């Protein structure tokens, strides 16, 4: 019950802030501009889908990290945590509630922007019933949940700005370099290979959740035997990161 109330609190706080609405309006403006584009009479369905998807995916990460970072740090800074923790809730309830609240808020933000994408695709006639598109939607939601958990963990151990920086860096590095790292490790030799591999495995693998190129270039749905485990991985990693954050928060002075 306490967790649910904290989730609701996080959602209310997020939706009352103006930055989400600014980004949403910009995304809708971009989608509108892209719909009207017809460069060289080419229609540009694939191009439009690519641009709008990239912008929405990036914007959702850019919105989520600060949102998650300020959940606990602002409570601590402004002492609003006292009012919550003076009640009969465990500290881990509070951490899970805040992380889940950030995740719910991030999902609401992303879903709103996704509506812009769907509308644009519908108007461009590029089809919205493609299974891979909805897989991409589900995967991005789980990626955002994971990002919330990782950011909350970083915010417990450091400052909010540091949490945002580290979490967005981890997204950027894994999404654009995760597979290159894999190649490097596969070609390595020596006694450190196993250790580096172990380090690689425990990193948050945001690259698993990015199938936008699959959607844009019409590669069809991701195989179910990969899609479902990736979702489970994301959920499990989020729980693990949040639990670790709760453990660190347990004996923290308020």
């Amino acid at each position, binding site marked *: 019950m306490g967790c649910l109330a904290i989730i609701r609190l996080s959602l209310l*706080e997020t939706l009352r802030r103006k930055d989400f609405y600014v980004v949403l309006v910009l995304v809708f403006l971009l989608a509108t501009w892209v719909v009207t584009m017809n460069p060289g009479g080419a229609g540009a369905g694939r191009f439009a889908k690519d641009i709008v998807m990239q912008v929405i995916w990036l914007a959702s990460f850019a919105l989520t990290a600060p949102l998650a970072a300020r959940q606990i740090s602002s409570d601590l800074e*402004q002492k609003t945590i006292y009012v*919550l923790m003076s*009640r009969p809730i465990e500290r881990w309830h509070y951490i899970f509630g805040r992380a889940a609240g950030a995740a719910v808020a991030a999902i609401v933000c992303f879903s709103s922007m996704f509506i812009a994408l769907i509308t644009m695709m519908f108007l461009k006639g590029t089809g919205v019933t493609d299974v891979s598109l909805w897989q991409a939607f589900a995967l991005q939601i789980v990626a955002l949940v994971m990002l919330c958990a990782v950011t909350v963990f970083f915010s417990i151990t450091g400052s909010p700005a540091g949490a945002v920086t580290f979490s967005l860096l981890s997204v950027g590095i894994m999404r654009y370099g995760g597979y290159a790292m894999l190649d490097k490790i596969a070609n390595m030799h020596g006694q450190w290979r196993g250790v580096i591999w172990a380090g690689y495995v425990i990193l948050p693998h945001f690259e698993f959740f990015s199938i936008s190129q699959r959607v844009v270039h019409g590669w069809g749905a991701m195989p179910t035997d990969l899609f479902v485990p990736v979702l489970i991985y994301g959920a499990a990693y989020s729980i693990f990161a949040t639990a670790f954050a709760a453990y660190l928060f347990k004996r923290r002075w308020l």
Partner: protein
Amino acid sequence: MSEIPAIETRDLTIEYKAGRKKRRTAVLELSFQVKRGDIVGFIGPNGAGKTSTIKALLDFTPVSEGECFISGIPSTDPCSRKHLGYMPEISYYPKFLTLEEFIDACAAVSGLRGRVRRDAVISAVERVGMSEHLKSRLSSFSKGMLQQAGCAQALVHNPDILILDEPMSGLDPIARMRMRHLLSDLQAEGKTILFSSHELGEIEMVADRILLLNKGELIFDGTVDEVVGANVNLEQAFLGLLGEELPWAA
């Protein structure tokens, strides 16, 4: 069979890190009890350890040694706070929420549901005289109004024990009078109140007992009459106990 005290500390010691290898003692072997139904004033100069003690009672601060109990339950157990209401010294609350949303969230976290919660929110807000501001955002509240909102959130779940940190801070004389009446009403309802304050005059009017802390140690534990004694008022007695010279000494 002796009654379980509402609030109890046993040899409570709290130490803070003050530099690389230094530790500062905020509270040293503090032991006291607050019986059910009492209003106890918790006083002391700045840095005496009042807030540290309150934080230990609420499990905001880990204790170095000793124990704290709320209704016989160790303060490290969240169940100890089931019937406890706390009003913090600094009235910072989520500014994006309305008063109603804020009190409702507090009630929900305390375990109230549905109709009961709704009624409790309205009742708590009425009790502190803030009904007309129910739909207003906390960001538009003055300091005094935030204090009253803080009082409302402490009362919303009808706790048996109240810990109030500087409840009179920022209140105008009329609001202070209302707060004094409220504390008396709460005591009449059988609630136990531990409140810290620098307003010795207010404590003299309201409290049954005084706990005087100085440099982390308990200097005095007794009734207001006992501490005032031959002194004119509590302030004189307070300064005398702390060994401070009175500037207007005859």
